[in-house]
């Protein structure tokens, strides 16, 4: 079920009404409703893969419980590895089996001994990368004794399958989300209004920005042989806004929907295209994943402790694995590698934590020239790295870059949709003005009085209906 579908527009109010009007007196019933609704939500895509979620839930619930009852180090490690193997095993099988089979085959072919790899005709369960990491965080935190294991299987099932963030995140930590299932949720007007507003903004990003940009990004990337360098650069720009509108829009809808049910999820995007360097970009882009890797991979590897060589190694490992997490293709690994290369100068000069605060002081419209230049350069670099993320294969990546960095870059673009570029400018303006909130229109109440605010909401709703591009699936569903 897509958030931007009629199905969801019917599903959400029904669950909302049952949740607050029928099951509101009983916490267990409310949690059970979330589980049923979440399984229904997921099952509409493919009910067969519900068994994977259920199995993963049971394994981690069981492992967590046994972990709490034993102090034996070897046994604890065995339990932890059991969870890791089960979860990553599923992920590896469904997502990476064919990739490894083909890569081994290619390697043998290079060595002059070609083999025919076994390929599996399997589909990737939607959201497996997300809920796998979420359940893993639970077991690891219990293992590290940062979290008390839950005894409530329904609350735990609801935590694993919580429908707003089940298929594309944010990847929640058990320490943040699970305790919210233990306490009775109270309806909060301010929280609900803010949630609905965030849903609206997420829909705007997805339906207007991402879907309209997708039309041109697809056109240009799918026919890159026929276009000049400037058009290809424009294609990369459209993809930059497509992926940002798509993924951050999804996150906004997920977070906003959760708030309607009384839950607070972590922020997943914080205006990443206003970053002044790559390090800042990665603190603002897909925050739930980058902090996951920080906490469960980078720090266990030694983090920023140790000599410079170790720090460089750790950084490379995190970026490359992060790239690989996104998809079983060398293009994603290369994308991770490119980001680590861009990150390296900041690391070597100890400048990777230079830009922590949101750019510029409040109440000023424009950033200082120096910051503006940095923002533009960072955006261009990020846009160029997206080429590898979007390309079909490595050959496509190099051809695409080759054409961008050719004399044809200085010719007029062969595709120039002024209307979509206009939408992007309007979008960037709203994001810039609202960059101090958790999402761009969070503080609209401080700027506009009620009639204007309502007029703005109505205009947003109408523009979503009128200006929406052709409905596309969320990109991150495939990860």
């Amino acid at each position, binding site marked *: 079920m897509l958030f931007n579908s009629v199905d969801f527009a019917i599903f959400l109010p029904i669950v909302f009404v049952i949740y607050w009007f029928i099951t509101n007196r009983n916490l267990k019933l409310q949690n059970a409703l979330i589980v049923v609704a979440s399984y229904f939500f997921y099952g509409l895509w493919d009910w067969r893969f519900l068994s994977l979620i259920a199995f993963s839930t049971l394994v981690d619930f069981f492992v967590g419980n046994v972990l709490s009852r034993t102090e034996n180090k070897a046994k604890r490690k065995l339990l932890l590895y059991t969870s890791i193997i089960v979860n990553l095993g599923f992920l590896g099988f469904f997502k990476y089996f064919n990739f490894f089979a083909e890569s081994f085959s290619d390697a043998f072919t290079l060595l002059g001994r070609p083999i025919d790899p076994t390929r599996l005709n399997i589909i990737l369960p939607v959201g497996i990368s997300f809920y796998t990491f979420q359940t893993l965080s639970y077991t690891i935190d219990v293992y590290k004794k940062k979290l008390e294991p839950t005894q409530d299987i329904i609350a735990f099932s609801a935590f694993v399958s919580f429908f707003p963030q089940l298929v594309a995140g944010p990847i929640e930590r058990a320490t943040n989300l699970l305790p919210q299932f233990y306490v009775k949720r109270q309806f909060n007007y301010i929280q609900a*209004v803010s949630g609905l507003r965030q849903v609206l903004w997420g829909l705007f990003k997805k339906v207007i920005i991402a879907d309209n940009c997708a039309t041109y990004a697809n056109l240009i990337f799918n026919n890159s042989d026929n276009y000049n360098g400037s058009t290809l650069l424009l294609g990369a720009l459209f993809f930059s806004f497509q992926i940002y509108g798509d993924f951050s829009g999804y996150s906004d809808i997920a977070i906003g929907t959760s708030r309607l049910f009384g839950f607070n999820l972590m922020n997943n995007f914080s205006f990443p295209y206003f970053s002044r360097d790559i390090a800042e970009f990665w603190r603002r882009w897909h925050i739930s994943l980058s902090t996951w890797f920080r906490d469960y991979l980078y720090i266990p590897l030694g983090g920023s402790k140790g000599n410079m060589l170790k720090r460089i190694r750790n950084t490379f490992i995190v970026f490359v694995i992060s790239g690989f997490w996104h998809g079983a293709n060398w293009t994603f690994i290369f994308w991770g590698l490119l980001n680590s290369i861009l990150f390296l100068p900041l690391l070597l000069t100890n400048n990777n934590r230079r830009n922590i605060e949101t750019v510029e002081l409040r109440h000023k419209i424009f950033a200082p020239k120096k910051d503006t230049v940095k923002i533009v350069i960072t955006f261009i670099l990020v846009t160029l790295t997206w080429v590898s993320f979007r390309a079909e294969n490595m050959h496509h990546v190099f051809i695409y870059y080759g054409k961008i960095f050719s004399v044809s870059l200085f010719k007029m673009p062969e595709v120039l949709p002024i209307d979509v570029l206009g939408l992007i400018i309007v979008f960037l303006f709203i994001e810039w003005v609202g960059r101090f909130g958790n999402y761009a229109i969070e503080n609209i109440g401080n700027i506009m009085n009620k009639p204007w605010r*309502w007029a703005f909401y*109505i205009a947003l709703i109408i523009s979503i209906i009128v200006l929406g591009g052709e409905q596309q699936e969320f990109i991150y569903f495939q990860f």
Partner: protein
Amino acid sequence: MRKFLSAFISICTIVIALNILLGIIYPYYIGEIIYPYKNKYLEKNINSYNSVVFGSSRMWRQFDTHIFDSVLSDDKLFTYNMATGGTFNPEAYYLYKKFISELDSGQIKLAIIELQAFTPIADENIKTVKGNYWLNTQMLKYCINYINGNQDDSIVFDLKSKYIQAYLYNLNNFSKLKNWFSLLISDKSFFVENNGHSTFEDQIVRGGVKSLRNRNNEFLDDTTVLTERISAASNLDLYKNYTLNNVHLDILLDMINLSAAKGIKVIFILPPRLTSESYKELMPVFMKLSDSDIINLASYNEFSDFYTVENSFDIGHLNKDGAYRFTKEVANRVKNIIRKQK
């Protein structure tokens, strides 16, 4: 909760009210691509015309109003071709009924309408404005009853559900804002010139759509496809005894009566080059209409000229030469009907 729900419901109510308001403001032809320009033109020049043609691209491309009017010069007919591409049954009937409802009595004397088989709505068209703008409650009822009347039981449910979906999409008037703005700002004079008639060749010469030339080339590459249409039109009498769809007959009679009330004489044309399936559906209805209300130009035995490669543009349409012959034939037959009535 009460405050939240009341704010939410209030905003939804405003949005719905705006949606309804737009539905009232829009012209009835909001989703059509060519018809609105023809309609505007005719409205402005209504005193220069007293006869109209309705139907699909077959009538638009094949009915040359100049030839028609010259044959009927004694009757002082001045005809405007309102037919457009891709307007099928029920859309074409909807447009005609709306058109006459806005006319003053006596403004138009004659309406020539293409008899069309019912076209199931394609999946890709359900959500498009062109695919559903005409689907008001009355037309939905017509579609559902029509489907009940003559479709195979195994596909009835699927067909009906598609029309219901399209009907629901049509309730969204915001989606038609783009069409509305484009109607307000754009000028498609090409479509309104030449009394609304344009052959495919004319459009190609004017730098029209590339795909038109391809269509013509594809047909010329393999003209054997005509054989099937010829065979369908060779034994039209065989189709007379197929099941009559009363819903179709009723709407045609309704159109005749509504037109008569405004002083308009309606003549339905059974066009050449349809499929056998279409003739199976149309012949029983056609036979129920009075001879003074119909013209049959489908028979291959009688009108073999309409089935030659030389007179064809593609499998379903005649070219410029074919259009000339077709219009002459219609004109002569209309002349006879008028003479008989006098």
